[in-house]
């Protein structure tokens, strides 16, 4: 049997896991204890950590140690303006790490103050999803395909990969979220066509993926099992939470005009902020189906009850410029793909925020009302589903990869032809960017270009590698550098040095340089420079995670046992009230008191002791 490769959509706000199930021969979304999608939240307590819904639902009582949205800062340095901006709005603390200037999140965990990197938080989310997959499949899972926004840069991709490794996953491939969604959609459309007896020719599909934190657009062409990404683009910082923020600001203005002192209190209380935010998010969801909705929080601070009505048109007005940014991005990506409006055969909506009616209308209008928006893929699950499809293609490898998924049309294999999302090049004299690999080039690919010296008798050249679209390297993202020495000693402009960029299917870049005359050579595998985790860092984090995993399992077991104990006592209670034997009544009352007052700090063993008392007295087994 081939080893399963699971697909994980590691989202800003929600995550989801799917895998190919050999029993049903289908890709299925796997339910975790939090449901089919799991909040990407981790909460730290004196006793251990909680992941997913359990973490999110107790945020109001533990706002400083409940961590979320780390995807917004993963792979960024502490000095990145985005990190600074995010750190301001997070209730938990973010500081600059000592070693490489990376951001670290400070939490109190098991009575200790811990500094954690965003990768470690993401790893905890991934580990939870891995566990859910293992339970579902009944076998260990070692490998995964993880998705990232199309516009993630090299560092952000590497950091996501590292998070996978800390969670004990061999990350076989990082793929772009809209591409994954397209794979999911493509299979769906294929099956539908077969059912209708229509044959599907070439289709150009626009994937519009607006999630909780990021926005991506891709244009793909699909034909005979091949999914060719034509162009991709987006905004790493645009999503549902930005709509929430706009409503939050509006609410705060509202409070300010009502009562300045309440405003100040709300501003300073992380608890009040998170309660208001939850009400705001709910209101936004309701506005997708209703014309108006109330935002209501009782006793927001002190005895101040907050209640206000927001109608849909006001919501649209508050977010008008954000919606416009979405539509503008679609136009840009279409132009990159050299794809005309009339060439598009489908528009696929992915991500929770695509439920917003006015965005749907804007898209419909943009395509002249010619095509209906496709909502046949599940907006919250399509990305994980597609990642699992790619996982299965890779797992079965070789020829025939994915053939079983293609259904009745079993003659075709499936293949994903992906592109590089950002241009890659080197720095020239005068800080000019010389692009070797243009964005939206299919990968894997290789490109060589010849460069020369700028000074007479110069024998060394610094090769500095950048990614980005700007003409000036300072505006782009520096990936790394190396020196080639032993260049032909000659007048400026005479030596000829070939610089070769090779980008593999995983988007990992190898750069080499060779002098045509002296044959002097230098090469480097480009990894993000700043704040990258070393192999030792990762090993230490894996060990930490292992160590705590045992304790967390214990905590989970305890919580499970406690609720079993509670349930048993309630069942016993009805029995006892029937028979009404005095010694049993007293025993029960003692147990109830203990559960209510003393069980919080009790060990599992002490709880089991009570369980045995119940078994002995009433013959009721607690499990």
């Amino acid at each position, binding site marked *: 049997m081939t080893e399963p490769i699971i697909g994980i959509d590691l989202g800003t706000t929600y995550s989801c896991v799917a895998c190919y199930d050999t029993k049903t021969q289908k890709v299925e979304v796997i339910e975790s204890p939090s449901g089919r999608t799991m909040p990407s939240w981790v909460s730290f307590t004196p006793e251990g950590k909680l992941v997913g819904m359990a973490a999110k639902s107790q945020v109001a009582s533990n706002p400083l140690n409940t961590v979320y949205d780390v995807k917004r800062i993963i792979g960024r340095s502490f000095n990145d303006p985005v990190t600074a901006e995010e750190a301001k709005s997070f209730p938990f603390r973010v500081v600059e790490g000592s070693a490489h200037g990376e951001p670290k999140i400070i939490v109190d965990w098991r009575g200790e103050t811990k500094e954690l990197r965003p990768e470690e938080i993401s790893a905890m989310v991934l580990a939870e999803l891995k566990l859910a997959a293992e339970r579902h499949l009944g076998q260990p899972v070692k490998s995964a395909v993880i998705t990232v926004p199309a516009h993630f840069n090299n560092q952000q991709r590497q950091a996501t990969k590292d998070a996978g490794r800390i969670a004990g996953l061999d990350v076989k491939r990082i793929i772009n979220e809209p591409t994954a969604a397209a794979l999911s959609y493509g299979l769906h459309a294929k099956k539908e066509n077969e059912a209708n007896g229509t044959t599907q020719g070439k289709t150009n599909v626009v994937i519009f993926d607006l999630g909780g934190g990021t926005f991506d657009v891709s244009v793909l062409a699909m034909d005979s099992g091949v999914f060719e990404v034509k162009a991709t683009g987006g905004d790493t910082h645009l999503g549902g939470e930005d709509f929430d923020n706009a409503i939050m600001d509006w609410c705060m203005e509202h409070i300010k005009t009502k009562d300045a002192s309440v405003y100040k209190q709300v501003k300073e209380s992380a608890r009040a902020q998170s309660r208001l935010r939850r009400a705001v998010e709910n209101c936004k969801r309701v506005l997708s189906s209703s014309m108006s909705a109330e935002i209501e929080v009782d006793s927001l601070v002190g005895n101040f009850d907050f209640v206000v009505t927001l109608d849909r048109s006001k919501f649209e007005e508050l977010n008008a410029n954000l919606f416009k940014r979405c539509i503008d991005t679609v136009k840009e990506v279409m132009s990159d793909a050299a794809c005309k409006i009339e060439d598009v055969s489908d528009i696929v909506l992915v991500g929770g925020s695509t439920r917003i009616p006015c965005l749907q209308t804007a898209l419909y209008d943009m395509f002249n009302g010619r095509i209906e928006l496709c909502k046949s893929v599940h907006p919250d699950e399509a990305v994980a589903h597609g990642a699992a499809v790619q996982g299965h293609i890779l797992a079965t*490898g070789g020829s025939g990869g994915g053939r079983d998924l293609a259904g009745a049309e079993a003659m075709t294999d499936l293949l994903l032809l992906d592109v590089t999302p950002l241009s890659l090049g080197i720095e020239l004299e005068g800080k000019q960017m010389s692009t070797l690999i*243009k964005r939206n080039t299919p990968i894997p690919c290789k490109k060589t270009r010849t460069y020369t010296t700028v000074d007479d008798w110069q024998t060394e050249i610094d090769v500095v590698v950048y990614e980005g679209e700007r003409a000036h390297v300072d505006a782009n993202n520096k990936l790394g550098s190396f020196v080639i020495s032993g260049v032909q000693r000659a007048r400026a402009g005479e030596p000829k040095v070939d610089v070769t960029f090779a980008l593999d299917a995983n988007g990992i870049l190898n750069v080499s340089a060779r002098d045509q005359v002296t044959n002097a050579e230098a090469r480097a595998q480009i990894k993000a420079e700043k704040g990258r985790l070393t192999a030792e860092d990762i090993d230490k984090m894996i060990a930490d995670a292992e160590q705590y995993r045992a304790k967390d399992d214990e905590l989970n077991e305890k919580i499970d046992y406690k609720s079993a104990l509670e349930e048993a006592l309630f069942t016993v209670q009805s029995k006892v009230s029937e028979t009404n034997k005095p010694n049993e009544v007293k025993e029960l009352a003692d147990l109830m008191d203990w559960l209510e007052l003393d069980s919080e700090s009790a060990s599992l063993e002490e709880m089991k002791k009570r369980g045995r008392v119940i078994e002995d007295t009433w013959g009721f087994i607690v499990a």
Partner: protein
Amino acid sequence: MSSATIVSEAYGEGACLYETVLGVSRDASASELRKAYYKKCLTYHPDKLSTELSNDDKELAKKKFQAISLAYAILSDDEKRKEYDESGELYGDDDDFATSKDGENPWTEYFNNLFPKV
């Protein structure tokens, strides 16, 4: 390594982009080219290679995939296809060096550097 080298390393000196690399006739339509390209990709993309292949074979497959991508990039662009049809040759593709993104010509700059203003 120019475009010509990528193709010759994988398919031999002067290999024809139509017949040898993509396996289509010279008058292939755009959709025939695309179909041929996809078919070749299914054979030579790294994800599609059998794990039993030797490293040398994998290396050759990689080179072929690059040549295939390059051939398709040229032939699916009307202007580049015409140029190739007329000359039968592959030129260096330093097109983005001639005019850089900000619209300035680096050669102008280069000459400006050589002959500083008086």
